[in-house]
């Protein structure tokens, strides 16, 4: 049975004008991504990985070719429809998390739900539950910039996950992290992929992250030079809610990082608070109240 591609990239090229000349950043790319895949884009710096990702994210049209999300040409859509797409179906995590500076961690994580016109109290409550399962609730009232980069990156993943999108893009999410924090974030992405069945499209330089990918796409000079499928896509564990899964992730991660001397401040927090909260799992899996107005 052929699975419908969630993303289909059809012979796209991207050129930028430099003065009077043009440089081609992406050349005739073709790629299909099926739901549940963990795609890793790898290649030397400047080869066009971020540009490719931003194009798929609908931020800028390709110079040639088409990009389909669930069989819909995303650049044939109206701008507002692409905004809706980003608001409901896809999300992005950056190398350096970017925050709304005036808001607390909790409010930042809750922000995407405000775009769905969900009452702020409900949005904040959901953000709190998500922070709680990662043992980050103590940081909820803080200013995002007071957090360590590892903590920020985990909060940023919670922000991208709060709208329960189908695809999560991550542009070098571990690029600024130390090894331990990187492992925490990669494990979190793995859980999101394997147990929630979310499609992950991630850019990385780090060869040690390769085992996490189910499909490795290698790029050089704006071209895809190799696509290696390592295993079939994940299918979501339908019996569990987000919180169950993230809760069990936190448990596993706590024991996994209890190794001595490897404690970064980020992972340290995870292990010390784990025992106090599994009972919350059921509560969080309550369905989200969507009050999207037309």
């Amino acid at each position, binding site marked *: 049975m052929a699975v419908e591609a969630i993303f289909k990239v059809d012979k796209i090229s991207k050129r930028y004008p430099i003065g009077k000349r043009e440089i081609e950043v992406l050349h005739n790319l073709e790629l299909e991504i099926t739901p549940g895949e963990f795609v890793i884009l790898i290649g030397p710096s400047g080869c066009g990985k*971020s540009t490719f990702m*931003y194009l798929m*994210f609908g*931020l*800028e049209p390709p110079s040639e070719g088409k990009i389909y999300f669930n069989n819909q040409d995303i650049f044939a859509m109206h*701008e*507002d429809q692409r*905004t*809706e*797409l*980003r*608001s*409901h179906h896809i*999300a*992005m995590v*950056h190398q350096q998390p*970017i*925050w*709304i*500076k*005036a*808001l607390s961690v909790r409010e930042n994580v809750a*922000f*995407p739900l*405000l*775009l769905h*016109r969900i009452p*702020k109290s409900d949005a904040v409550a959901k953000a709190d539950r998500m922070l709680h399962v990662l043992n980050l609730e103590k940081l909820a009232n803080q200013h995002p910039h007071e957090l360590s980069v590892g903590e920020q990156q985990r909060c940023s993943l919670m*922000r991208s996950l709060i*709208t329960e999108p189908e695809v999560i893009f991550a542009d070098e999410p571990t690029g600024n992290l130390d090894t331990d924090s990187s492992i925490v974030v990669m494990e979190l992405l793995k859980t999101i992929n394997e147990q929630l069945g979310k499609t992950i499209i991630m850019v990385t330089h780090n060869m040690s992250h390769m085992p996490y990918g189910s499909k490795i796409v290698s790029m050089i000079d704006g071209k895809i030079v190799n696509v290696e499928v390592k295993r079939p896509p994940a299918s979501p564990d339908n019996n569990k809610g987000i919180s169950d899964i993230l809760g069990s992730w936190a448990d596993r991660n706590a024991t996994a990082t209890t190794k001595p001397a490897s404690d970064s401040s980020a992972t340290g927090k995870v292990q010390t608070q784990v025992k106090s909260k599994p009972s919350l799992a059921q509560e969080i899996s309550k369905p989200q109240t969507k009050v999207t107005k037309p």
Partner: protein
Amino acid sequence: MTWKDIISLGFRNLTSRRSRTLLTIGGVAVGVTAVIFLVSIGYGIQRLAIRETLQSKSLSFFDVKVGTGDIGELDSKIVNKITSFNNVKGIHLQLETPAKLTLPSSSTKADVIALFNSTTYLQQTDLTLKKGRLFADDKGELLISDAVLTLLSLPAEKVLNSKITFQPLMRGGLLAGKPKTDEITFTVVGIIDDRETPYLSAPIQPVVDAYGAFAFSAAKIEVENVSEIAQTRQQIADLGGLQTEYVGDIISQLNGIFSVVRTVLAGFGLIATFVAALGMFNTLSVSLMERTREIGVMKTLGTKRRDVWKLFLVEGMLISILGGIGGIALGLGVGYGLNGIVNLIAKATGNATTSFYYAPPLFLLLIIGLIILLGALVGLIPARRATKISPLEALRYE
């Protein structure tokens, strides 16, 4: 996003850069204070001038005067004609003659001018009493001016409430027929505050009854409908030889002058407000530049362009509204405060208190409206720029 969420986020953005926001709001407040303060002084002085002009006079009255030369005459025929005009509610006459005045208690005499009219007539003049009260039309009472006291060399207390005898002297045919009595005796009930002209003022009816009268020197016409006063004046002018004067003309002139004065004063204040608006524009632009990545990420999170636009507009309007409220409070506080202090000093030094500061509610409403509009206008350009931020460039921009 709901408006509530946008406003709350805008507010948070402003409070997270507190000192800059406060400075900008302060700038707007100073501009608004200047406008409110200066214009309200304009209004206050205008109100004073109009009160001074009107005093107890009503705008439903105008004066008819006999023109110079022999052409015009205000005789009973003309009076009857005027009374029959549509818009005329009443006619109040004045007769002016020289008179001889005697104070029987001390048998001192003086030559004065006698003005025979009525309570209603007097109420429509600038006359101010120094002592006592206005006469009643039918009680045998009269008023004399301060200057008469000087002629009689008597203090007010000696004359007030005592009897005075006077004899109007015939002149130019103003009084008709032979007098039935030579002299009339009335009680002095008030002293008119006028040290220059020695005159008495007494009810006209007893004089007309005693001497008969076929022509008068002046009249005050009361109209039914103030808006048709111009037509009524024209009707009277058309009779020939009669001139009309209307306090409303002076008021209109005053209003004209003061609207110019106010415009000039508002101009000074507007310069301050304009500088404040530039400050606002600067603050919003800097805040836009600082938040380029933030706006970029808001867009990648799925924020609509429209909502980003609204956010900047709301931030501009919040600054202007807060500045406006501050400016109005400060403008009113400073103005009325200053007025209060001046009045305290006036009281202490035995002078009359005045209110030279007046901020009409409609003017304040207008200012509030303009200030909100200003915020929106100033916010418009950064708001537009914010919607144009390409999330891609914002994310690449370090």
